[in-house]
């Protein structure tokens, strides 16, 4: 964020010697840093307590939001922070989900052992895919990853993989009930997913704030300048692809465990496009935005459908309008919040804040 995006940048521009104009801003009597910390703590408390206040079905939905957020975060690391486009992240989710699924269904390994292997395999796959992708920029990379996303469901159906993947029939996954008596199954899966979600969000936070993150962002902003300054762009780009794959792999494994079923149709190109949309709507290059993105993927189609049902109750043809409504809402969001929901919130917070 640069000073010029702030509403009060004019006042700051002349006087501020320090590069960070937030230093002197105060909101609700707190400094910006305190405010940010307390929002994170309040947010975490809400996330922790929410499952006890809603019904199981809503907990199941929130669990899906967790793994979708992890996937959106993975994509955001690659696109938002490193500037590489991908239309193929459903493929990494599929790889992660099938790694977990095959371990559980074919080798009868307990579900909790499947998360890390799924992530590691997707890291390797992402890194290896990232190497040739180094030669591709922008739209060409988007096309290459698009091909990956369209090929994946077909590969999963390939007859020689069928003994493992279950082919078109998919894999039915069995798992044990909640090991903790006072938690319902849905609550247990929520906290199980949340554990990995929190770890990965903290990991991403540390990654982008450190030396690596600065290198990633430098490559995004100006690859030539970055390499002139001694950043090994190929290693960083391929590694970022790997890390992004890792996140999506874990998300895929969690999705397999939570939904208890995987099929090639679970990971179509539409899923990849939704991840991309969710990232943009949430906010590029923002970590908390991934949560908004995850929630968007899950709740937005339901919301569009509810809108259509409310307006056209009783007309059977109206169901065709669900994606029209989805599109309209999306256009509105992009117009009102060009920097994504996260950017919009940040902008408002800064508007509320006064120099103290």
């Amino acid at each position, binding site marked *: 964020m640069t000073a010029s995006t702030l509403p009060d940048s004019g006042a700051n521009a002349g006087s501020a010697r320090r590069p960070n104009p937030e230093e002197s801003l105060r909101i609700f009597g707190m400094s910006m840093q305190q405010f940010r910390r307390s929002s994170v703590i309040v947010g975490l408390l809400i996330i922790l307590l929410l499952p006890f206040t809603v*019904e*199981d*079905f*809503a907990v*199941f*939905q929130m669990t*899906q939001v967790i793994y979708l957020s992890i996937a959106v975060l993975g994509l955001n690391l690659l696109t938002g922070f490193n500037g590489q486009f991908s239309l193929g992240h459903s493929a990494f989710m599929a790889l992660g989900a099938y790694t977990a699924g095959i371990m559980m269904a074919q080798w009868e390994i307990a579900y909790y052992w499947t998360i890390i292997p799924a992530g590691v395999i997707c890291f390797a796959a992402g890194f290896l895919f990232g190497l040739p992708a180094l030669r591709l920029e922008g739209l060409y990379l988007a096309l290459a990853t698009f091909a990956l996303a*369209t090929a994946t469901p*077909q590969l999963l*159906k390939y*007859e020689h993989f069928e003994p493992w993947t279950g*082919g*078109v*029939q*998919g894999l*039915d996954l069995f798992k044990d009930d909640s090991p903790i008596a006072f938690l319902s199954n849905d609550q247990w899966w929520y906290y199980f997913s949340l554990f990995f979600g929190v770890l990965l969000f903290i990991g991403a936070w540390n990654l982008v704030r450190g030396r690596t993150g600065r290198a990633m962002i430098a490559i995004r902003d100006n690859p030539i300048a970055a390499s002139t300054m001694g950043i090994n762009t190929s290693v960083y780009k391929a590694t970022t692809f790997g890390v992004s794959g890792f996140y999506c792999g874990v998300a895929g494994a969690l*999705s397999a465990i939570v*939904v*208890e*079923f*995987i*099929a*090639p*149709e*679970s990971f*179509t190109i*539409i*899923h990849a496009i939704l991840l991309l949309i969710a990232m943009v709507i949430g906010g590029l290059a923002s970590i908390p935005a991934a949560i908004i993105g995850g929630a968007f993927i*899950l709740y937005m*189609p*339901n919301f569009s*459908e509810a809108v259509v049902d409310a307006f056209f109750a*009783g007309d*059977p*043809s109206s*169901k*065709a309008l*669900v*994606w029209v409504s989805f599109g309209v809402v999306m256009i509105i969001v992009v117009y009102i919040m060009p920097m994504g929901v996260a950017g919009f919130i940040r902008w408002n917070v800064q508007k509320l804040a006064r120099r103290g």
Partner: protein
Amino acid sequence: MGKTYTLTSGATVAFLAGIGVAVAGNAPGVTDTEIKIGNTNPYSGPASVYSTIGKSISACFAEVNDTGGINGRKINFITYDDGYSPPKTKEQIRKLVEKDKVALTFQTLGTPTNSAIHRYMNKKKVPHLFVATGATKWGQPDKFPWTMGFQPNYQTIGRIFGNYILQNHPKSKVAVLFQNDDYGKDYVIGVKDAMGDQYAKMVVKEESYEVTDPTVASQIISLKNSGADVLVNISIPKFAAQAIKKMDAIGWKPVHLLNDVAATIKATYTPAGLDKSKGILSVTYLKDPNDPEWANDPEIKAWRAFMTKYYPKGDRANAFNVYGWAVCSLMIDVLERAGDNLSRDNIMKMAASFKKFRVRGTLPGIVANTGPADFYPVEQMQMVRFDGKGNVRFGPIISAETSSE
């Protein structure tokens, strides 16, 4: 609370949910004035061509409600979009069962999507009725007592083709074209099953295509070059039309057995060319609304009137709309026979006790039969030959009644 414990568990759930029930033990979602029925359909996504089934079923229940409902209860048909994505289906179904509290689900569409909820529905003991898929696994009352299919399954139809070849062309060379997915493979299993050892001897070439392929032209050339004189064609309308055109272009005229999915005049024969489609054999159980034979048929007339009044934007040439209207009659009959005892157990019991129930919109003579061990309602079909105008039925109604598989 002591009093609550004496009630059955179903009633406890209803009691806690604050739903007024007429009879203790009625399913959730049932009141004196309403029955809630849940459904998922691919209103968006790759399979949205099927969504007109969900729409025609909505229209069917609108008609039921207009004419007084069922035993005084209106049907509240709640149908959600799942985009043909199994995780979304699971989410939507859980919403229907746990939040909307539907009494049952009806005609949830798709094989992978129904697979994702198969175990959930049976664990929750919610009737999962008349699913809209031809896969064979929906009729296993011993393992999945809450799930029931509807249409003749793909393996059954495959067996009909296999038997036809053995009886009428025992010395032929057979070529097989199939779509490389559950639907195509299920058919092939049926053909193999019927032909037994003969399959390996008679089939000279198998070719498959992916549903994402642009064309099947190369497969058709390769099948022709195998020297086959019988073609078993298991493809959806788009590819079936391509195959018919290509066969005409390269002058290959085998005995052409085309699966029922593609044996429709509007979707396949018209785009391929009616002349080029002459002589194609198929099996069917539904009346094709484009077939001149049914122009004055009372059922198809009733269906047209229904479409005009309740689903005016629906395509009157689309057989899927006949399908939705046909299967809807099964659901209505189950609820009518259940009367005021609308517990989930009783609903399943009624669904499993169809006795020669005439399913409107199906060919004359076709009836639905179910029993405690037979969860396949419609298992009869008839062979047809396309004469350039309509599908002319020949031979007897073929019954593939199974007890259970």
